[in-house]
C-alpha cells in the first residue's frame, strides 16, 4: 500500500509540470484556436535560460523565476505581435498552427546552436533534499514544483475571473467578433492571453531546469504530454488542466511501476485516445476540445 502511495505521490509531482504547460496551452487555445505546439520547446528554451543564469551567474533557479517569467511574458507579447498577429485575424486556423510549428523548429535549432545537443541538468546543493513523512519520501524540489503549479493555476484563475482583461479573454474564447463589437481591442486581448501562456512556459522552464535533464528535442514530447493533460482536463478550465496534468503523471508512474517502463507512453496515449473517444469534453472540462454545436 505504501508503495502504491509513493508511486501516486511521485506521479502527482511529475504531473504538476504537465499541468503548468497544459494551463498555458489552454489559455492560448482559448483565443487563438490552435494547439500551440511550440509550448514544450519554449519551456525547454526557458529551462536553458535558467540553466545559464545558474551556471554563468550562480543565480538560484527559484530566484530566476523573478527574471525568467517576466522575460517570458515579454517574449510572448513580442512573439504575438511579430509572428501571430496577422495569422490570428484569419479565418483559417492552419496558418497559425503552421507558424507555431515553425516557431518550434526555429527555437529548437536555436537551442541546438547555442547550447549544443548535450543534455543539461542542474546539480543544486539541495537537489537531493528529501522530506520523509510516515515512510513516504518526497523530494523538496518536486514538492516545490507542485506549489508552483498550484500557484500558477490560482493566479491564472484569478486573472480570468477578477480582471477586466481576463473577463474579455473568456469572452473572446467564446466569440471573438462579439468582443470587437463591444469596442474591446481584441488584438490586445489575444496578445495578453498568449503572453500569459508563454509566461507559464517560463514558470515550467524553471521547474524543468530544477528536476529534469533536458535537451533541445525534449520540448516536442513535452508539448504532446501537455496536450494529453489538456484533453484529460478539458479546455477552458484552469483547474481542470492542472488536474489533467496531475492525472497523467499518476497514470505514467503507475504504468511504469506496475506494468513496466516501456509501457508508460502506451498507457498515456491510450488514455488520451480513450478520453477523446468517449469523453471529448474532458474529465472535468465544461468546454472540452470540441464544443457542442
Amino acid at each position, binding site marked *: 500500500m505504501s508503495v502504491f502511495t509513493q508511486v501516486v505521490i511521485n506521479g502527482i509531482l511529475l504531473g504538476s509540470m504537465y499541468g503548468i504547460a497544459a494551463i498555458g496551452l489552454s489559455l492560448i487555445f482559448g483565443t487563438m484556436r490552435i494547439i500551440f505546439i511550440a509550448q514544450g520547446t519554449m519551456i525547454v528554451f526557458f529551462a536553458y535560460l535558467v540553466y545559464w543564469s545558474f551556471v554563468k551567474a550562480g543565480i538560484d533557479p527559484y530566484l530566476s523565476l523573478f527574471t525568467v517569467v517576466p522575460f517570458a511574458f515579454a517574449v510572448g507579447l513580442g512573439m504575438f505581435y511579430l509572428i501571430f498577429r496577422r495569422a490570428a485575424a484569419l479565418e483559417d486556423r492552419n496558418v497559425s498552427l503552421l507558424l507555431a510549428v515553425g516557431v518550434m523548429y526555429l527555437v529548437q535549432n536555436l537551442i541546438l546552436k547555442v547550447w549544443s545537443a548535450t543534455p543539461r541538468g542542474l546539480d543544486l546543493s539541495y537537489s537531493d533534499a528529501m522530506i520523509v513523512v510516515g515512510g513516504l519520501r518526497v523530494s523538496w524540489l518536486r514538492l516545490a514544483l507542485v506549489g508552483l503549479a498550484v500557484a500558477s493555476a490560482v493566479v491564472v484563475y484569478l486573472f480570468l475571473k477578477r480582471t477586466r482583461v481576463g473577463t474579455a479573454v*473568456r*469572452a473572446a474564447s467564446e466569440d471573438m467578433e*462579439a468582443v*470587437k*463589437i463591444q*469596442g474591446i481591442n481584441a488584438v490586445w486581448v489575444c496578445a495578453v492571453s498568449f503572453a500569459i501562456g508563454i509566461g507559464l512556459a517560463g514558470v515550467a522552464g524553471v521547474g524543468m531546469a530544477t528536476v529534469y535533464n533536458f535537451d533541445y528535442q525534449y520540448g516536442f514530447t513535452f508539448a504532446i504530454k501537455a496536450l494529453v493533460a489538456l484533453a484529460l482536463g478539458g479546455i477552458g478550465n484552469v483547474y481542470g488542466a492542472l488536474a489533467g496534468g496531475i492525472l497523467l503523471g499518476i497514470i505514467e508512474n503507475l504504468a511504469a511501476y506496475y506494468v513496466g517502463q516501456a509501457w508508460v507512453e502506451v498507457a498515456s496515449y491510450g488514455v488520451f485516445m480513450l478520453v477523446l473517444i468517449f469523453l471529448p469534453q474532458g474529465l472535468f472540462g465544461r468546454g472540452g476540445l470540441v464544443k457542442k454545436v
Partner: protein
Amino acid sequence: MANLLLEVKELGVAYGDVRALWDVSLEVEEGSIVALVGTNGAGKTTLLKTISGLLRSVHGQVLFEGEDLANLDTKHRVDKGIVMVPEGRRLFQGLTVLENLRLGAYLPKARAGYDDSLERVFSLFPLLKERKNGKAGLLSGGEQQMLAIGRAVMARPRLVMIDEASLGLSPILTRTIFGLIVELNTQGTTVLLVEQNIHMALKVCHRAYVMKTGHIMLSGTGEELLANDDVRKAYIGARGSRLL
C-alpha cells in the same frame, strides 16, 4: 429640422469579388428610430457591420455628426457612441449577466459611467437584475435579447443599431422588446433598427428604408411605407404581419 446623427453616402461594400452593397445612402436624425427592412440577404447586416467598422467599404462615406469615420476602427466608433446589438444576440453564454454588462462598458468613457448605466439597464430590464449572477446562456430568448440590448446600453451609446431584435421570439415577446426599444428611444437614444418583421418595424419607426439585393429601393416614413402597395405586396402578407 433635427440634427443628422448618422449619414451614409453612396456606400459600396464587397466580400472579395462579391458585391454586397451598391451606392447605399441613408440618414438617421438624432433622437429618431429608423428602420431598415427587407428580406434575407438584402445587405442590412452588411450595412450595420460597415457602420460599426467591422467591414470596410470600397467606396462612399459613413459620417457621424458630420465626421468621416473612414479611419476609425470599431473601438473608436464604439467610443463615439455607435454601438451594435448583433444578430443572434451573440452574448457570452458562459459568462454571467453582470459580466456581459461589464464587457459592454469596457472603454474608459463607458466605464466612468458604469454605475449609472447599470441602473438604467436594470430599470429598463428589471428581469436582468434578478438574474445578474446567473449565466447568460441560461436566460430565455426574450431575456437574452434584453441582455444584448442592455449590454449595448452599457456603452452609453448615442446610436444603437439593433440587428433582428425579434429573431426567434414569440409575437408577444416581440411586442415587449419593441416596447422597450421605443422606451430606450424616448430616453434619448437614437435607434437604427434592422428587421425582418417589417410590419412591426414600420409601426414604431419614424423613418424607414427598404433594402433589396444590396440597394436601397424605397424610403419614407413608417406610415407611408405601410400604405405603399408595393411594400404591402412584396413584404407584408395578407394578414398584415407575415414576413417574407
